[in-house]
């Protein structure tokens, strides 16, 4: 038998679940807990004690934040976690980004069209009432300040989404996600090279987007080389004349 003592799991200090406030948000319990850093008890005089405790608390808070960031795979928070897990998380983050990007574009689009939510200061609200709350512009209403800048040209609302044709050359399975603003089919569009969040991965180049105004749709041409590493690649779709974004393109190449 091996001379070394068998490694054993230490006996837990508790015999039932911890139900105290100290773990309410994942923080450690204060009851009987040691100082957070340095291990030394704070000095006795209130001024020094307050300062030292203050530094302990804020440093502990920052350390917790760094640990959470590291667990999420944020690159600046320390060594990267396992390749697969990181890729999935970054994929999720990128998907969230494209979701938010399309949301913002939607918001911008509606703002441009003069529709959407409540008016900002500087814009005269529409008149009329809906339910118990006035929409503004009634006889009692204070005079709204005049707009300082002309409103952008309005786009018609309620338009059908842009038709999309895909021309993909790939020996591997790929997932393609396109977010494109309405009325983009008549515009000269370009797509940036698609980039992965990991800086060492090569870009997906040669992506083209072709406008087919007569058919009110666009055609996306994409080539994925056989040896291209798995990952999530994304890029902006721009109006070539104005360089303003019209949408985003995301391509996911799953691991083999």
């Amino acid at each position, binding site marked *: 038998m091996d001379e070394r003592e068998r490694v054993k799991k230490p006996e837990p200090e508790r015999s039932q679940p911890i139900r105290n*406030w*100290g773990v*309410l*948000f994942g*923080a450690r319990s*204060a*009851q009987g807990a040691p*100082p*957070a850093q340095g291990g030394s008890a704070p000095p006795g*005089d*209130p*001024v*020094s*004690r*307050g*300062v030292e*405790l*203050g*530094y*302990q*608390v*804020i440093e*502990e*808070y*920052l350390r917790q934040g760094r640990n959470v960031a590291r667990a999420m795979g944020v690159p600046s928070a320390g060594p990267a976690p396992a390749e697969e897990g990181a890729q999935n998380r970054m994929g999720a983050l990128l998907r969230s980004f494209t979701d*938010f990007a399309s949301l*913002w574009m939607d*918001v*911008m689009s509606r*703002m441009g069209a003069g529709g959407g*939510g*409540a*008016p*900002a*200061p*500087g814009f005269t*609200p529409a008149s009329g009432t809906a339910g*118990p*709350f*006035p*929409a*503004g*512009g*009634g006889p*009692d*209403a*204070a005079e*709204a*300040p005049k707009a300082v800048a002309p409103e952008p040209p309005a786009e018609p609302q309620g338009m059908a989404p842009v038709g999309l044709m895909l021309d993909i050359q790939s020996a591997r399975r790929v997932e393609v996600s396109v977010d494109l603003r309405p009325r983009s089919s008549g515009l000269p569009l370009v797509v940036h090279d698609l980039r992965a969040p990991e800086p060492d991965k090569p870009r997906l180049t040669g992506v083209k987007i072709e406008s087919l105004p007569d058919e009110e749709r666009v055609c996306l041409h994409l080539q994925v080389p056989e040896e291209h590493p798995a990952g999530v690649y994304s890029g902006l779709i721009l109006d070539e004349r104005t360089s303003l974004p019209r949408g985003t393109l995301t391509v996911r190449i799953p691991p083999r």
Partner: protein
Amino acid sequence: MFARSTSDRVRERLDDYGAAARARMREYLRDGQTRHAFYELVSDYPERGGRSLRASLCLATARAFGAHPTDALNSAVALELLHNAFLVHDDLEDESQERRGSPTLHLRHGAPLAINAGDALAVMSLRPLIDNVSTLGSRLAFRILEEAERMARESVEGQALELWWRQHHVVELSEADYLRMVLKKTCWYTSIYPMRVGALIGTRDGVELDRYLHFGFFVGAAFQIQDDLLNLVGDEARYGKELDGDIWEGKRTLMLIHLLNVMKSSERDRLCQVLGMSRAERTREQVRWIRECMDRYGSIEYARQVAHGLAGAALHEFLLAFADLPDSLDKDFLAALPTWVIERA
């Protein structure tokens, strides 16, 4: 000719920043119909005045970094609206009776309308952040929205912690527990977030924001302790809330935590018994006794000295975080804040 004191200088700047923020806030609150009862209710707390400290910090930081005076106005207004939303709900949760020198909203109009007015203020605070898209661009507006979400989350977690202590009669607390709670409940939305957003706007998202955590934390913590001290020793008319209200509410202030940790065990047992009661059950005599114990055990002086220490640390952190900025009235305001926080009455 007399040199103006630090407090005078800070007050002047607060007046300037506050006037700009309040004027813009009224535009959002008015919503085209000044006399409608709903908007009167929602405007009640904002119209009672206040220092606009949070808005001022946001505006001052942005301007210290070279932003145009109006660049941070929407974000500052959003913060003030959310602050007022928090106040309405906090007053209800704390069963407070006065706010800014008048009865609290729930005492005037009842809890259901007060809760709804608080909800409305919180919702209204989103509009200026959305309007940032047109003034700052969608990317920066989204970054500010991210910061706002984090700030709101930290704040409600801190508030939950304090309410939990009271509801579950937690008395085994240390000063570090108090500072952890204050970091979340007060510092994030009073000082950390306003400075982070000001820096975001002033640098167009070009600076590491954790740089401002330390300064924001120390200023905010000193501010909260001083605020709690003023509840015990301040001038009620200037303070705007009932004196000793925190004792009535059983609020876990630094003074109360100090008292719990230093008093004789027989007195401690009595104090714990009082803290286990609801506000309605506590008597004036019990509150007076707790207040007298705080004097006798030096809890008030202790807290005052801790606040001074934290303000000193804030001054030190200011030099580290803002040293590379050019001199300006805005930078001067930020530098003077730690002193003002503990000098204010």
